[in-house]
């Protein structure tokens, strides 16, 4: 019997990535995969088998309604594995679906494969200090970690439409504000200079921004600077509960290197750190470190960057 895999994300930018994982997982197991989308969240790009769920109510902005639609369709088609992108709304949809269908569910999974009637994979636990091996018996719902696979190329295949009727939603969306784009795009940044508590005053962030500008990079920060001090908007917060980044170069300036912060930068190609405290955990998580005061090391770096360019 061939295994059937569904790939779903309410987020168009994540949907292709989930489709890509579904494609390789299904192919390796000799199974089939179908990409499922929501009518109001943009066209489906990847996949040969596409189904778009339609409803009288908005689905893309109500995880409850989206889960309702998916559950209804899943009861008809009975897919062995439903893969969902581990976005914030995606995890809610996966949870609800698991309860509705009475299936086990695991989130933030990467490196997934099928075998012996289970989906096996890994997930980071204990703020990234450990990796857990999970084995989820089929049929199951699994939310895949975002940003671990490249997107699948778009296909010409037309999507089948499936009307799901009306679906309940107990909450009402009053307003949606896009976070300011353009000011910071840490997820896609190739180079990031991030500030931590070693920066003493808000005005001193200028030194960090100056280094970032000189290197053509973006500015990030550790949690205290955005959440406690409010020196930078929450969008700059890198870490477990903030943004996960994967630049070519990450420079941590005055960041002690708490597990929660390091969890958000693990996939960086090269990590550098500047910190006065030689025993700061940040150095353990770095390729290159400078023990020194950022107030003298950063200006020295800037002088040398400028000198190189002349």
């Amino acid at each position: 019997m061939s295994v059937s895999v569904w790939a779903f994300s309410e987020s168009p930018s994540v949907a292709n990535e989930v489709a890509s994982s579904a494609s390789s997982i299904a192919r390796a197991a000799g199974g089939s995969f179908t990409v499922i989308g929501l009518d109001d969240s943009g066209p489906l790009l990847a996949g040969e088998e596409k189904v778009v769920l339609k409803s009288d109510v908005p689905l893309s902005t109500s995880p409850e309604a989206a889960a309702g639609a998916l559950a209804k369709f899943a009861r008809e088609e009975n897919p062995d594995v439903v893969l969902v992108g581990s976005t914030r709304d995606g995890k809610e949809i996966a949870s609800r679906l698991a309860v509705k269908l009475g299936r086990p569910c695991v989130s933030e999974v990467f490196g997934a494969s099928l075998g012996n009637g289970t989906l096996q994979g890994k997930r980071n636990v204990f703020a990234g200090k450990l990796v857990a091996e999970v084995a989820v018996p089929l049929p199951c719902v699994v939310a895949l970690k975002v940003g671990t696979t490249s997107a699948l190329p778009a296909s010409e295949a037309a999507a089948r439409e499936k009307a799901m009727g009306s679906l309940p939603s107990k909450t009402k969306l009053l307003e949606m504000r896009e976070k300011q784009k353009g000011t910071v795009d840490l997820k896609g940044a190739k180079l990031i200079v991030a500030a931590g508590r070693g920066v003493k005053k808000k005005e001193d962030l200028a030194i960090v921004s100056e280094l970032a500008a000189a290197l053509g990079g973006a500015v990030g920060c550790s949690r205290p600077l955005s959440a406690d001090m409010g020196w930078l908007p929450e969008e700059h917060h890198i870490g477990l509960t903030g943004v996960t980044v994967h630049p070519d170069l990450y420079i941590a300036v005055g960041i002690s290197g708490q597990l929660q912060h390091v969890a958000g930068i693990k996939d960086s190609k090269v990590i550098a750190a500047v910190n006065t405290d030689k025993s700061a955990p940040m150095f353990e998580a770095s390729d290159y470190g400078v023990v020194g005061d950022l107030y003298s090391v950063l200006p020295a770096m800037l002088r040398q960057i400028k000198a190189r360019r002349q």
Partner: protein
Amino acid sequence: MKIAVCVKHAVDETELKVDAGGNPQLKGAATRMSTFDKNAVEEALRLKAAHQGEVVIVTVGTPEAKKTMKEALAMGADRGVLVSADPMAIDTRRTAELLAAALKKGGPYDVVLCSEGSSDMYSGLVPPMVGELLDLPYVGYARRIEVSGQAAKVERALEDSVEVVEAPTPLVASVVSEINEPRYPTLIQIMQAGRKPVEELSAEALIPGAGQSVSLVRGMKAQAMARKRVVFEGPPEETAKKLLEALASEGVLPR
């Protein structure tokens, strides 16, 4: 207003030791209330301050979880409900089922709060599962909660957007850590916490068969941290130069 907060007693990941073979030493490891749960307790206490009522802490845990219960009671919660089961031996769905059953038994609650995820496993699945199981409105990743009358207005922090959502009470919500700054209990509060009532429920009594292990985790190993850990010390001009040279040789500096 009757408010419940679901919390988890967890191993302190910052104190967790790993042996030479990469195996975590979970037995005897330092434990405490899951970091972000303090924000959920804090938010409940703020809601109580504004609306009067009662804050009840609900947890699924081993007898050791009484430590977390005491932490939450010391912060100002009124009483606790401890469902005895080992959260590391059951999956998220079973945990959510036990929480939902305990909430139903002691309810109805006007507001049920959770944090966005536990600091140990960080699945983020249990709060929406509780909402779904109780068939209540659920709002995840709240960074602001305002309750007035029979409705709540909640600001949700998503990846690329902020949503303002309205939901009738009773409701279930998860909060992000930016929602507030958790208070520190005073010495007197810590001393008084031991005298606050904690009801113990057996998992088996709530849901027959719920005590059985249903873990989906096969094993845990230390994350390979393949970093070079080269450290430069000396005068700033010198260390800055060495760092830039090293980064240039890695090919990660713009030319």
